[in-house]
C-alpha cells in the first residue's frame, strides 16, 4: 500500500490532511504517548538491583504466577466454549438466536465492577451456585477459582467475536468437497474446518488471555486478595501505589507490559506462521 509513496505522503486533491493529522498526533501524544513514556522513564530511572528486588520478591512472583495461570486457564476454557458458542450461533438456527448473539457482548458492555459483585454474589458460600458447591467443600469465591470464573466471564466475547465472522464466511463448498471425497463429519471438522479456523481461534485466545492478565474490576471482588494466595498483579500495583511506592508500582507495571507485549508478539509470530503456510511463504 505504502510502497509507491515517494515523499511523506501521496498527492491528493482532498483538503484537510494537515490539520487532521496535526490534531491526531497532538492528541495521541498528549493522551497516550507522553503518559506511557512517563512510565517507562520512571522505570528506566530505577537501578537494576532495585527493579530486580521488587519484581523477584516472592509476593510479586506469586501474583504473576496467579495472574498468568488463571488467565491462561480462563482463555483455554473460553477458546473451547467460545468456539462452541460461535459455532452454534452461526450454524444452528434456534429461536432467540439474535438475542443470544447480542447478549454475547455483555462482558464488553457491563462495567467490570458490576460483573465483579454479581459473580461474587453468585459464588459466595450463600450464593446461588456457591450454596450448591459448599456442602462438597468446593469454594469458588475468595479463592483463585473465583478469579478464574471472573476471567472466563470477561474473556468470552473475544473468542466468539473473532471466530464467528470467519465461520460465517467459510465456504460451504469446502465441507461438501470433503464429504464428496468420503470424509466423515468428524474428519471434515478436524482436517478441513479447524485448520481454517485456527488463526482466528488463536487470536481470540490471545486477546482473552491478554485481557485476563490486566483485568482488575471483575476480579478483585471475587478474589479474596490474600497475598501469596489470591492477589493478582494489578492489585499489587495498586497496593504499592497506596504505600506511595511509585518506583515499585512502575517496576511491576513495566514488567507486566513487557510480558504482555512478548506474549502478543509470540502469538503474532505463530499466527504469521499459520497463515504464511497457506500462502506458502
Amino acid at each position: 500500500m505504502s510502497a509507491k509513496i515517494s515523499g511523506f505522503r501521496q498527492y491528493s486533491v482532498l483538503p484537510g490532511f494537515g490539520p487532521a493529522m496535526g490534531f491526531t498526533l497532538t492528541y495521541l501524544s498528549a493522551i497516550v504517548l507522553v503518559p506511557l513514556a512517563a512510565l517507562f522513564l520512571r522505570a528506566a530511572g530505577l537501578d537494576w538491583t532495585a527493579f530486580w528486588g521488587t519484581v523477584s520478591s516472592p509476593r510479586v512472583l506469586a501474583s504473576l504466577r496467579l495472574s498468568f495461570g488463571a488467565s491462561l486457564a480462563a482463555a483455554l476454557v473460553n477458546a473451547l466454549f467460545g468456539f462452541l458458542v460461535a459455532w452454534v450461533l452461526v450454524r444452528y438456527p434456534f429461536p432467540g438466536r439474535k438475542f443470544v448473539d447480542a447478549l454475547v457482548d455483555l462482558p464488553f458492555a457491563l462495567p467490570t465492577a458490576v460483573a465483579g459483585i454479581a459473580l461474587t454474589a453468585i459464588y459466595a458460600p450463600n450464593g446461588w451456585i456457591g450454596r450448591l458447591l459448599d456442602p462438597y467443600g468446593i469454594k469458588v469465591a475468595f479463592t483463585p477459582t473465583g478469579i478464574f470464573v471472573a476471567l472466563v466471564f470477561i474473556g468470552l466475547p473475544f473468542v466468539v467475536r473473532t471466530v464467528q465472522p470467519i465461520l460465517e464466511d467459510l465456504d460451504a463448498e469446502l465441507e461438501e468437497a470433503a464429504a464428496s471425497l468420503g470424509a466423515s463429519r468428524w474428519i471434515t471438522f478436524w482436517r478441513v474446518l479447524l485448520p481454517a479456523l485456527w488463526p482466528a481461534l488463536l487470536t481470540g485466545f490471545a486477546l482473552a488471555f491478554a485481557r485476563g492478565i490486566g483485568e482488575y474490576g471483575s476480579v478483585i471482588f471475587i478474589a479474596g486478595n490474600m497475598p501469596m494466595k489470591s492477589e493478582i498483579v494489578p492489585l499489587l500495583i495498586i497496593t504499592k501505589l497506596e504505600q506511595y511506592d511509585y518506583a515499585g508500582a512502575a517496576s511491576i507495571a513495566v514488567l507486566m507490559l513487557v510480558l504482555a507485549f512478548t506474549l502478543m508478539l509470540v502469538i503474532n509470530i505463530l499466527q504469521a506462521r499459520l497463515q504464511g503456510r497457506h500462502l506458502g511463504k
Partner: protein
Amino acid sequence: MHSGKSLASSTASNDPRRAVISEPPLVRYALLAVALGFLGLFLVMPLAAVFTEALSKGFRAYFGAMAHVDALAAIRLTLMTAAIAVPLNLVFGIAAAWAIAKFEFRGKDLLVTLIDVPFSVSPVISGLIFVLLFGLQGWLGPWLDDHDIRIIFAVPGIVLATIFITFPFVARELIPLMQAQGTEEEEAAVVMGASFWRTLWNVTLPNAKWGLVYGLILCNARAMGEFGAVSVVSGHVRGLTNTMPLHVEILYNEYDFVGAFAIASLLALLALVTLAAKSFVEWRARAAIREAIAMAEAEGGVA
C-alpha cells in the same frame, strides 16, 4: 478488540445448502444445549443476580439507595466525565479517520497500531501512568502542587484516565469503514468546489454515520463503566471523586449490598441499552451495506 466484531466486516450468511453437510440432530441439540447452558451460567445468571440483589429488600430500599446524596453525586460525576471524554474522542476519531482513511502516507500502519495501544494496557496501568505524571511524587507533581492545581485524586484525573481508556473506540470503527468507502465521493465534492467542512459534513460523515454511532455507543458505555483506571486516580472521596462504579465498590465493601446492587443495576441497565443500541446499529448498517451492494449490482447490470 474490545468492541467485538467491527461494523465493516459483518454480513451474516445463511446457507440453505447446509442440510447434507450438517451434524446429526442429536449432536446438534447436544451442542446447542451445552453452548446455551454455558451462556446461561456465565452471562444470564450474573445479570439476573444484579437485579435480584438490588430488589432483595423491596422497591423502597432500592429507590432509597439510588436517591442517596452520595449516589446522586456519583451519577452526576459519571455523566459529566462521559460528557467530556466522549465528544473529545469523537473529534479525535473523525480527525484520525480522515487523515488515515482518505490519504496515503508513510507510517500509517504504525499510527493505527499506536491508536489501539490503550486497549492493550491494563486499566490499572492506565491509571498509574497519570499518577506517575501528575501525582505528588510524579514528574509534574511538585509544579502542580506549587500552583495549587490538583489532577490526581480529583476530577481532572478521572476525566483524563477515562479519555485514555476510551481513546480508540470511535477511531477504530471509523477508520476501516471510511477506508472501505474510498475517496471518490469526496474527490467529486471537491471537484465541484465544496469546502473541506462541507465535504466532511455533507459527504463523508453521512456515509460513515452508522460506524460513528456504533463507536459512540461503545465509547460511552466504557466511559461510564470504567473502574480500574478511574479507581487508581480517584482517591475515593465520597460525593466528590466517586463515579458510579467506584460508588458501587464503596457500598459493597461497607456491606451495603442493596445500595451497591442498586447502583450496579443502573449500570447493568446501561449495558443492556448499549447492547440493544449496538444490535440496532449493526442491523441498520447491514441493511445499508445490502442496499449499496444492490445498487452496485443494478448499475453493473445496466452497463
